[in-house]
């Protein structure tokens, strides 16, 4: 390498360090090297002066200061939203970390998907059940199934009652069987007309073998079940 070539290389290397000489972060060895070079290199000396002016001009430019509080609040809101998302989709909280077991995330997702499927199935069943409630395929003792002719009372008796006891009771209450018993054990009773329905009901309800007795025709004072 010739002397000129060496000088040119030195010039390029030292010239490249001028900005860090200017901002005073250059290492000591390079600072001494640059000091020695600018003593003999007019170009680098001029460049050093120009860069010092540029640095001073940039440093002296007015800078705006901003209040960070509102920005910080918005950062917190973003973190809250991120953590809420994370909590709804996977267990980890705090700074997200690389999971050593990535399958856990998939398992959590699968469990969540299954839970959603079960919930949807249950909801569907409930809707079906609720829709059937309005059109029940069973009947209560008092619901509005067609009334047999002459029926004024529906009654359910104890399974242990004998036919003699039943007949004695009906005679006493001036009632007769017009229909039944149904599969549910319901009797439709007609009145012999000598006694008001309310009085017949009152007589029936005195017996312990009467489980249920209700008038089927609207009549003031009636309607109390046993």
């Amino acid at each position, binding site marked *: 390498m010739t002397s000129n070539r060496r000088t040119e290389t030195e010039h390029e290397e030292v010239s490249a360090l001028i900005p860090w000489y200017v901002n005073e972060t250059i290492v000591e060895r390079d600072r001494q090297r640059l000091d020695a070079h600018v003593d003999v290199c007019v170009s680098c000396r001029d460049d050093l002066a120009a860069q010092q002016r540029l640095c001073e*001009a*940039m440093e002296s430019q007015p800078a705006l200061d*901003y209040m960070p509080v509102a920005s910080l609040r918005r950062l917190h809101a973003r973190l809250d939203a991120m953590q809420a998302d994370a909590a709804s989709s996977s267990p980890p909280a*705090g700074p997200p970390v690389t999971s050593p077991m990535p399958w856990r995330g998939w398992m959590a997702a699968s469990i969540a998907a299954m839970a959603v499927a079960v919930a949807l199935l249950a909801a569907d069943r409930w809707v079906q059940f609720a829709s059937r409630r309005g059109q029940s395929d069973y009947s209560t003792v008092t619901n509005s199934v067609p009334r047999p002719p002459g029926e004024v009372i529906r009654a359910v008796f104890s399974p242990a009652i004998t036919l003699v006891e039943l007949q004695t009771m009906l005679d006493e209450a001036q009632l007769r069987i017009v229909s039944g018993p149904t599969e549910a054990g319901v009797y439709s009773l007609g009145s012999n007309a000598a006694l008001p329905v309310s009085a017949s009901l009152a007589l029936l309800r005195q017996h312990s073998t009467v489980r249920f007795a209700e008038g089927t025709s609207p009549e003031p004072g009636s309607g109390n079940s046993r």
Partner: protein
Amino acid sequence: MILPAKNSPKERDSALLAAIAAGDRRALEELYLSYHRRLARFLSRFTPRYENIEEIINDTFMVVWQNAKEFRNASQVSTWIIGIAYRTALKSFRRQKNHTVASLEDYPEQTVDPTFAAEVNDWLKHGLSRLPIEQRLTLELAYHMGHSLEEIAAITDCPVGTVKARMFHAREKLRQYLPALSGVSADLPVRIG
């Protein structure tokens, strides 16, 4: 999180980052407040809109929050944070049309006399705005933020040679655009056009 006053800024930053890695939001808040002014001043040299500045700073601290555990003390915490801000800003500026690199022909002729102190800021802004964003960021990191060559290499994730080259080209262009800064014409009033 309250740290003992005897801690140096570097130790304080390291302790805060360790707390952030453990999920401490108060530590994040403390670190945010200690860096906000520096970053906002730096970024305000590239964009006048605070919403852009805030977006870059907050994006930076989202990354800090998410990656605090990955920090291995290979560099200073400040270098790491400013490096994240640098990359975030670079992406943001590249997205913004008003930060696309313009050619000399895109600008009007210089009409500002740099010998008047009141006009120096506009004149300097004019010259800096002509630099490619990577060159300008490098220049600002050195002259405005005061970072060393090695720190800028770490912040920009580039070899030292690349940092030197960017700075060299920035200086050459500024010498061309801002002749008053050169030693030769410093005393000459420049009014062109």
